[in-house]
């Protein structure tokens, strides 16, 4: 083994080693990236929701969705837990109230319009994208229907049209087009109690904090979505612990794109170093030489 080869192997080995040991480590949690623009958001105060389903009705109309299976004023839907569907972008569910059993809690669910969405970091054609205004917008023309966004979304919000030959992924649009026209999202406009409050996310967080501060006994001291998965555009207030009203409380505060960043950083390094390394070993073990019989491989062993 000549010196040149040895140093070469050493360098390659070292870089390979750092890659394996450090390359896949995830970056530290980023709670709120200050570089993010001032997105619009929504504050859902579950203590104010009366379960009237006006938001569902308004959403249905604004997005021109097919008529519901059960009319919007029928309370029987609350008997069973409901999930959003390809044609139902938001649903209100009823939960028992552990603090005040006479007054059940109503909680609406829809896409959270994350600050750094898992769905967008999953999508290979950028069909899911966080717009600078705030909504996570689905560009249906680009989508190839791989459903990786569904695998990735921590809230299971993208829904797929399994029964169509030309299916799309569907979810709450945060009324992106209405927002661009300067209008409020349809649900926020329809909500009679202000349980669904539209505004700039930063201001909404301030409002939420004020409400907790002024009514410390009424609310649990947590704003769901302030830090979860790196922060979500829609944030929630509650009077009971969030796991009692159907929220996942074990998601952590690391934004989902961070989970794959380490791996993606490693890719160009491998692409550059691996071939050089392999070629080096290959040549040190044998070479193609022009001999009397023509080109042939000469092996060192």
């Amino acid at each position, binding site marked *: 083994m000549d010196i040149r080869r040895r140093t070469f192997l050493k360098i390659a080995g070292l870089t390979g080693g750092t890659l394996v040991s450090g390359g*896949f480590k995830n970056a530290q949690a980023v709670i709120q990236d200050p570089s993010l623009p001032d997105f619009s958001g929504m504050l859902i105060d579950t203590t104010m929701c009366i379960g009237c389903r006006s938001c569902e009705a308004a959403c249905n109309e604004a997005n021109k969705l097919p008529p519901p299976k059960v009319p919007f004023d029928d309370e029987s839907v609350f008997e069973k837990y409901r999930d959003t569907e390809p044609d139902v972008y938001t649903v209100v569910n009823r939960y028992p109230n552990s603090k005040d059993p006479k007054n059940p809690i109503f909680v609406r669910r829809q896409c959270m319009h994350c600050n750094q969405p898992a769905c967008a970091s999953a999508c290979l054609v*950028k069909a899911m994208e966080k717009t600078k205004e705030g909504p996570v917008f689905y560009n249906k023309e680009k989508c190839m229907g791989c459903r990786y966004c569904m*695998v990735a979304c921590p809230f299971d919000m993208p829904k797929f049209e399994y029964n169509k030959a030309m299916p799309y992924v569907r979810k709450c649009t945060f009324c992106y087009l209405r927002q661009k026209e300067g209008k409020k999202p349809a649900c926020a406009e329809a909500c009679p109690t202000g349980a669904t409050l539209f505004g700039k996310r930063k201001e909404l967080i301030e409002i939420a904090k004020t409400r907790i501060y002024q009514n410390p006994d009424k609310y649990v001291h947590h704003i769901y979505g302030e830090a979860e998965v790196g922060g979500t555009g829609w944030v929630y207030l509650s009077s009971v612990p969030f796991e009692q009203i159907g929220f996942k409380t074990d998601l952590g505060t690391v934004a989902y794109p961070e989970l794959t960043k380490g*791996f993606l950083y490693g890719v160009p390094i491998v692409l550059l170093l691996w*071939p050089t390394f392999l070629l080096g070993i290959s040549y040190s073990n044998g070479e193609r030489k022009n001999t009397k*019989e023509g080109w*042939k491989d000469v092996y060192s062993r």
Partner: protein
Amino acid sequence: MFIQDNSIIMDVKKTFTFILSEIKPKGKVFTPFNVISGAIILLGIILIIFRFAKGLGAVTNLSQEYPWGLWIGFDVVTGVAFAGGAYVLTFMVYVLRMEKYHPIVRVTVLNGFLAYVFYAGALLLDLGRPWNVINPIIGNSFGVNSILFLVAWHFMLYMIAEFIEFSPAIAEWLGLERIRKVLNSLTLGAVIFGITLSTLHQSGLGALFLLAKGKIHPLWYSEFIPILFFVSSIFAGLSMVILEGTISQRVFKDKISPEHRASHDEIVIGLGKVAAGSMFVYFFMKVLEIIHGGEWNLLFTPAGYWYLVELCGLVLIPCIIYAKGVRDGSTKLLRVASILTIIGIIVNRLNISIIAFKWDAPVRYYPSWMEIEITLAVIFAEIWVFRWIVNRMPVLNEHPFEKDIG
């Protein structure tokens, strides 16, 4: 130059008629294998038409809860691990220059190539809007931060690399001596490119599941999934090479030269050694990962028992059998080990993509019979194409370098 023109046209014509004559089946058509597999493929085609007409829901049990099922979990994720033999073998032969393994390089590369074409091709069945699959390629939309983007590109490039690696065999079959020489000179480049791509997309397939944090049971979810996928693809691929080699030795008996047959045992033992080594590394990493994640207590739950079945029964035990087979020079033991390992890989990949995925969901996903049927159809179609090629091209019976020298 000009005089040659005519002869080139003649060449093309000759090649063309030759290909036409080769398309006809060789040997008996109505063997039991052909009849059964033919029926399965036919039914598969009908179901595929049905799937495209009516949507995925008509043939699969996929749901909003389980967006990925058997076609991704088995066909793509597992199939690609088994195709790993090609990059491991080309690494041994062209990079480490272990000449001993040369006789099986071609067949392994062919197997790998077809596996990608068919299993990664099965991905198209699973896409809701497959015609948009060109989007990430033609660049009208680059989701460069997506692992799936990376994997998709690497699949495509790797198929090209493997095709180049295999192409000299096609040139030999067609008798195109000059072209063969050119293609042959591309081999090393393609091999190195191919190994690099494989390193990245074998681990990339695992990295896909990094985003499913919280949905995969903590025993299986780990930030080291990419490395675990990569290491396990080494012995997954090698075990497949050993098993396929055993079958080929019987089915294509007349195609294999006596010297090759004699050296086959030695090759299998060598491969077994590498498999045992990589399995031990893998086992060790898995154990470290559990200690690192502090998940000991989870081992004593039903999911934990299942995990132990996978880790001890289908990794550690076959690893020991491999080691014993190598020491005793027993190809029989090695074959047993390869089968156990293959089952282990299937279990592992299905665990991560389906079984441990949403392990606590109230309604579980089970593949429909139609999903299984179509998967079988894909496998048999691959075997048909493989057989067609092996019966015609110099895949099993030739030692390309001897020809090079001569």
